[in-house]
């Protein structure tokens, strides 16, 4: 990278089913919170990048009303229309370009406003798939899960184990939405079947939530904090439309991870990463991600969950915060992963803290069946 860039502040909301707060209030609180966490003021910001979508927000030019709440008044700003990790990517590029030094990134969705699963239908090919009306993101995910399960002998129990791990991890996370400390495999398997094999507890809950992250160039970061979290690597990739790709694998995640690893100098992800935060919208995506991220060989994802390797006490903890199954405020979900990873590095993860984290991976995704993926590798001062 052309210059070192660090995360210097962050804040997130208490993600929940229906926040009973306007989006402006919710966004203002996290942006103000991130500024307070970094110990800087709005005047210090050079640029603001927000993330939301018109469809999910249910209004045209969704950024127009939250811009002021995000501190963008008379600032050089812009908006990406997808997951918050893409907004971070854009903000990072602005800092790398040398045109800006300190950037605030904000992402939000109130799932209670517009049904995210209904909105997913509007991402379908309008001439064919939308007209037929059999697909939405849940149905597509079920097809994907089945393809993956069939090729690698993965069972419903494996998916349930992922849900158990993440939902019980979420119980220790004060910001999470779906917290289930004592959930069992049987309970997950017994939850409502939405679209076989996807059960209710294997799918992320629709949450209201927002988060904000402040990044700064090395020089500014060192002035702002003694605990900067460096962005060591970043990679992004989008694959073809659901009908034009092999749903049974997450090729774009693989490409994104490879790019980020190369930049961060990571050769053996399973050994070099201390914690991983994933945006798994469905339980099976976490197993697929293990493989795409190179934490194990292809088809071996189920072994990691069987052996507890990715549990909070395991060798490579994945989603100690509960991941997206713990809370999914759609556009904010990936950026929350970045915050959770940064918290682990700074030792601020409270009940979710994993010992000795020097390097962490945060993942964001957008689109049906994780069509586009973003990977950030973060490191602390010692890494």
């Amino acid at each position, binding site marked *: *990278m*052309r*210059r070192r860039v660090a995360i210097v502040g962050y804040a997130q909301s208490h993600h929940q089913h229906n926040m*009973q707060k*306007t*989006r*402006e209030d919710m966004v203002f609180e996290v942006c103000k919170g991130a500024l307070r966490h970094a110990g800087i003021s709005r005047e210090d910001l050079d640029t603001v990048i927000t993330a939301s*979508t*018109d*469809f999910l*927000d*249910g*209004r*045209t*030019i969704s*950024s*127009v*009303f939250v*811009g*002021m*709440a995000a501190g963008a*008044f*008379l*600032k*050089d*700003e*812009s*908006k*990406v*229309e*997808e997951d918050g990790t*893409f907004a971070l990517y*854009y903000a*990072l*590029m*602005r800092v*790398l*370009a*040398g*045109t800006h030094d300190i950037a605030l990134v904000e992402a939000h969705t109130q799932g209670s*406003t*517009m049904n995210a699963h209904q909105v*997913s239908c*509007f*991402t379908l090919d*309008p001439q064919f798939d939308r007209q037929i009306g059999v697909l939405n993101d849940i149905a597509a995910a079920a097809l994907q899960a089945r393809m993956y399960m069939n090729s690698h002998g993965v069972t419903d129990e494996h998916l349930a184990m992922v849900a158990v791990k993440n939902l019980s991890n979420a119980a220790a996370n004060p910001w999470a939405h779906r917290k289930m400390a004592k959930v069992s495999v049987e309970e997950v398997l017994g939850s409502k079947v939405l679209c076989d094999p996807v059960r209710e507890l294997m799918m992320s809950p629709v949450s209201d939530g927002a988060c904000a992250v402040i990044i700064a160039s090395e020089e500014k970061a060192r002035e702002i904090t003694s605990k900067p979290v460096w962005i060591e690597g970043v990679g*992004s*990739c*989008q*694959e*073809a*439309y659901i009908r034009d790709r092999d749903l049974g694998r997450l*090729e*774009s995640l693989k*490409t*994104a991870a490879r790019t980020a690893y190369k930049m961060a100098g990571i050769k053996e992800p399973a050994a070099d990463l201390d914690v991983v935060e994933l945006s798994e919208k469905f339980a099976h995506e976490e197993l697929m991600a293990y493989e795409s991220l190179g934490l194990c060989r292809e088809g071996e994802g189920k072994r990691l969950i069987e052996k507890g390797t990715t549990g909070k006490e395991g060798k490579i903890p994945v989603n100690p915060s509960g991941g997206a199954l713990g809370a999914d405020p759609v556009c904010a979900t990936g950026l929350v992963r970045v915050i959770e990873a940064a918290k682990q590095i700074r030792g601020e993860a409270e009940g979710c803290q994993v010992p000795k984290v020097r390097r962490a991976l945060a993942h964001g995704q*957008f*689109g*049906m069946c994780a069509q*586009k993926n973003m990977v950030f590798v973060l490191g602390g001062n010692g890494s």
Partner: protein
Amino acid sequence: MKRRNVAVIGCGQTKHSSRRRDVNVAEMVSEAVYNALEDAQVSAREVDAFVVGNMPGFGGVAQPEQWIAESLGAAGKPVLRIATGGTTGGSVGQGGYYVVASGLHDMVVAVAWEKHSDSKEAGATTGLLHVGLGNFFHAAGYGLSLKNLVATSVVGAAAGVAVYQAMFYMHRSGCGIEHFDMVAAKARRNAAKNKYAHLQWPGCTAEDIAKTDIVTYPFRYGHICPASDGASAIVVAEESLARKKAKQPAWFKGLASYTDEENQLQSENFGGVGVTDPSEQRGCWLSAVKAYRMAGIVDPKTEIDVAEIYQPFPSQELFFAERLGLFDEGTAWMALETGETEIEGRMPLDPSGGVNATNAIGSSAMQRILECALQIMGKAEEHQVPKKVRNALAHGWGGVTNYSTVTVLGDTPGR
């Protein structure tokens, strides 16, 4: 730190018209992308990443780049989607700059589009009703006043705010409706020389426009932009590639996108009432100041050779030209009378016909950057300004009157 030199090396557009029924979104957008690649003489394989954008509510498709990725040649690559309302194209073009300037990638395609006609088909798409209703239920859920419904329903109606802007400007500057006739006539005449433009009227005069009825005071039917289908794309590359691929690259010299408070329409918190004069446009002014500083431009009146201003309504060409520092406060309309802003004039404004003649919303602000690049590369054909273009200014405007994008392109990368 030293900035990376970045340039536009290829431009591609589609023909713009009311209804492109011969193509779907995927085909229309790829037409622009492949035209740009052909112009830059590069293959899709050489492109590292894509930046895309449009107004999703107008086409009725959410995240359309997911569906059309393969048609664009974007599958398997990083794709960044940027959408900021009227400024979408400007934001996408500027996004293209930042992707390359960051050093993460060396060559990107930035493409923006709109296919308005798709959303006129009842039942086929959601359009503005869908997004309007969303805010209605949201507000009702909190027990907020349904005044918001009224506010939301006029968000898409640009004429509603443009008349206030025009009136403020008329009072402030002394310009009259006849000057709007002149701007609109110039836009139609210039568009006739631009083969991609929508409303083309060779030899159109202010008198022709003056014959049309008043729609909403002070605008006549002939003043108002069309709703177009169309797409535009640019290929952006770092210095060594740019010098290898293009005879005359159009270099990004300065850019910014400052936002002001949204006005007129109240948000859920009943904010957005601080701006009383929607033609004040502080965001535009701040963007111009930063872009000129980056570009090393001290006196835009003499150093800018041509400008593409975002003017869906003719009044906007006038006060934005002043906000951008091309004319003194309240004088831009006088320049119309002396022909200074014609293609052959001292300060040509919108030689392509501008947004007033072609408005495919997402694409419109991108077209401004693209048209400036064409002028610098000398590829604007019939509407090429008859002088050496050293610096060209591309402007975008949108949001709830509060978004601005300002981009300065030049024939050399340095200041």
